[in-house]
């Protein structure tokens, strides 16, 4: 472990029993909700590995649903998440499954939003409540949720990355980390940028107006 502070060692304040299987699971649900960008109305949740094997005893299922509802890891209502989901109109189903060569504490969300939007997210709880989003709509990503994050779906042609970074330069937004992946040459591509500054709605609007940009989404840090 790298350099830590006192609140890494005393904290987080959380609903038990496990930082990885409960608190981490809530945070995965929150991230999936943020990536969907709207209230989810339908969700299929696939639990992999240790999440599938020991999830029931750790309340992993409850925690994932709680996160989808926007609850934080210290929310005392987490054990009641399924009931609250029904009240809030979230239809969900949970099942075990094999997500392939991923971390043992992994989950796949298939979500439909109130506004009709749809997203597929795969993420892992990698210890102590820390999480990593591994895949969005089939694209490989690495999002820990510790920075403001920009996810951009675009066409894979020269210059698209440059026009995005130029716009961020103008907006005085510094890029901390960046990852680009694509389906195949010239096809649809995905850009993930973690930034030091918050990405305002106005910047997002400008990004969406750029040519060859299909979708742009800003995710607030956890």
């Amino acid at each position, binding site marked *: *472990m*790298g*350099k*830590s*502070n*006192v*609140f*890494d*060692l*005393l*904290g*987080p*304040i*959380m*609903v*038990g*029993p*496990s*930082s990885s299987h*409960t*608190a981490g699971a809530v945070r995965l649900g929150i991230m999936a909700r943020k990536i969907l960008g709207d209230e989810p109305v339908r969700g299929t949740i696939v639990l992999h590995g*240790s999440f599938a*094997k*020991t999830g*029931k*005893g*750790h*309340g992993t299922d*409850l925690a994932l649903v709680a996160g989808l509802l926007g609850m934080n890891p*210290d929310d*005392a209502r*987490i*054990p009641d998440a399924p009931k609250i989901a029904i009240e809030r109109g979230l239809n969900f189903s949970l099942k075990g499954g094999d997500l392939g060569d991923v971390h043992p504490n992994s989950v796949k969300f298939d979500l439909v939003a109130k506004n009709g939007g749809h997203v597929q997210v795969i993420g892992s709880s990698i*210890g*102590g*409540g820390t999480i990593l989003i591994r895949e969005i709509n089939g694209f490989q990503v690495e999002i820990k949720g510790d920075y403001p994050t920009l996810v951009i779906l675009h066409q894979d042609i020269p210059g698209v990355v440059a026009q995005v970074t130029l716009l961020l330069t103008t907006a005085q937004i510094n890029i901390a980390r960046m990852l680009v992946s694509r389906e195949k040459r010239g096809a649809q591509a995905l850009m993930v940028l973690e930034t030091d500054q918050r990405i305002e709605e106005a910047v997002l609007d400008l990004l969406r107006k750029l040519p060859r940009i299909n979708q742009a989404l800003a995710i607030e840090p956890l």
Partner: protein
Amino acid sequence: MRAYEAWIIEAENKGIKISEVILQNQIEELEQSEQVLIERMSTNLNVMRESVQAGLVGKRRSLSGLVGGDAAKVESYREKGGSLVGEVMSGAISKALAVAEVNACMGKIVAAPTAGSCGVLPAVLLAVEESRQVSERELLMALFTAAGLGMILAERASVSGAEGGCQAEIGSAAAMAAAAAVELAGGSPRQTADAAAIAMKSMLGLVCDPVGGLVEVPCVKRNATGAMIALMAADMALAGVRSAIPVDEVIDTMGEIGKQMSCSLKETAQGGLAVTPTGRRIQADFL
């Protein structure tokens, strides 16, 4: 790499407590004021108090049904006055069980340093609080001492059962609680280090073998074990007993033993108590 020894020397040179060295260090590293840090720690202490209270009266059972109600049993037994180990120790036992049960039953706790070991530190500090006059400020500062030692443990070794076994979780919690108890009882910075070293040495080699992979058996009862060892180590250090091996070296040893430990004994539920006939049956029945 940080060393606890460096903080002891700084505290001795300045004639201040170890917690004040740690608080000062964190004011600089986190770039937050003393008031903000104290308030954040105060939130932790409040949740610790609530979790003790909830656990002592709680009748809830865990999702698996394996855990719940033992803190209340110990509390009512000690109230009758017949405890073999006396007021403070038995009070620490019931409180440690209380918080660990709250955790297993999906109640709210402070990870200290982890969720699985969340009962040790509140049990020790609040048991000491019951037995002598300590102010809220002194309790909060003792939490800084505990967390500071925790930082050394995390950086030099590990506080994760999956990496270092139970010695890294309950063992770390016991060392942190021992150091905090010494400071709370008016011991010197050097004595906090001796207490931490003695507690950690008593936990070296302990494996993480949870039945069914759940934070229940033997985790809940091991929180009581950790609290007892912390109080024993604190008492020895306060009496002037020194640890032959310095605390930083004991912590490095814990890290090394963790690396040498078989994976089956590090939170995988593939060894130890988890694979006993009863452990396997519990797992099969529930999961």
